[in-house]
């Protein structure tokens, strides 16, 4: 149950992008198309799981003083390996993601999870945390890029990352004269990000209010029960 909670937290409640505000730089830059978002999401998931697992494995032998440089060496190597693999096996994805793959090195989600979770927990929990957080990041960038692509181009196209000419899914619902090209630029990225972050904050606030209300009611019931017990005790004393 705890593991499931841990995994689920990264998706919405502790979503790294819209809730923890980590990795915003790459989020704003790559969310022009859903294709880019899926590719970047997959790369981040791979790096996050592997870095969390490796860092968790060596957590007991890593000296505390140099843990950050060690994490950075591991993360940078993993990102470079992933970049080389993408270049070799999905060159079209490499073309569209361009400079953003090396930027995963400085993506705060990865170092953040290494420091906050993987360095303190066992391998399995760290892998689950990496998967949850990676999926949370992917979910965030896919939703954001879907909205941006839809508003900027009037539709959405997903192609095979290994063969860009093979369209897997495509639709167009907004006529060209009604599209808003601003959403394809960085201004649109900030606007979309702000709206989605506000929605997540609203959801979190509602949940917090709900929890607070439940706690209040539980306290009230407790107080009433105590009062009733005290009254009964008094009655009992009188009867004696």
């Amino acid at each position: 149950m705890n593991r499931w909670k841990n995994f689920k937290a990264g998706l919405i409640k502790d979503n790294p992008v819209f809730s923890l505000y980590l990795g915003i730089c790459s989020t704003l830059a790559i969310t022009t198309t859903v294709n880019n978002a899926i590719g970047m999401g997959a790369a981040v998931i791979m790096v996050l799981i592997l870095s969390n697992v490796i860092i968790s494995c060596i957590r007991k032998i890593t000296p505390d003083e140099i843990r950050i440089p060690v994490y950075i060496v591991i993360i940078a190597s993993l990102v470079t390996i992933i970049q080389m693999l993408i270049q070799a096996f999905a060159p079209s994805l490499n073309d569209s993601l361009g400079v953003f793959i090396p930027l995963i090195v400085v993506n705060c989600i990865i170092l953040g999870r290494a420091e906050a979770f993987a360095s303190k927990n066992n391998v399995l929990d760290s892998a689950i945390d990496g998967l949850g957080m990676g999926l949370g990041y992917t979910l965030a960038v896919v939703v954001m890029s879907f909205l941006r692509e839809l508003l900027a181009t009037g539709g959405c196209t997903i192609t095979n990352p290994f063969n860009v000419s093979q369209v897997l899914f495509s639709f167009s619902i907004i006529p060209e004269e009604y599209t808003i090209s601003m959403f394809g630029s960085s201004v649109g990225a900030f606007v979309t990000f702000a709206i989605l972050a506000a929605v997540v904050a609203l959801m979190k606030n509602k949940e917090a209010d709900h929890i607070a209300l439940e706690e209040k009611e539980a306290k009230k019931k407790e107080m009433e029960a105590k009062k009733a017990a005290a009254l009964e005790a008094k009655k009992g004393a009188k009867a004696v």
Partner: protein
Amino acid sequence: MKKALQLGLFLAIVSAIAGGALSYVNGITSPIIEENNLAIEKATLLEMYPEANEDDFELVEGVSSKTIQKVYKYNDFYIFNMKVSGYKDGTTYLVSIDSQTEVIDKYQALSNGDTKGLGSQVMDEPFKESLEGKSASGELDTISGATVSSTPVIEGIHEADQVLKDMK
């Protein structure tokens, strides 16, 4: 002192393992990457000149600069593989110039890493049509709204033309 040495040694071991892993993956992927790039280039050359065979494109040795990656010769045409800057990642393209008349015969973009719908217009048909048939040394039109991406492409064509003049 002993502690510092221990820390240094640990970091060195981690770096050595990471370096070894990188070198192993690089050994596997670099021939594939090289092969991919060559295949794309060859396919584009054949798309530009469908009547040619793969072996008809003769690689011209000894010409390279920051922007000119390779030069091929096919009949009277010199085909330049250019990589120029742009808004983000820039553009890689092939341009073939007639060595006799210095007219742009064909233009074909291989990749562009700039904003989709803006800078990426350097890969589109209207821009290609605006270049083909014009003098490589003359005035060429940039794309309005995407000048940061299209100006380096045009500057690259002028540079290729200059190299062609020097070769003659």
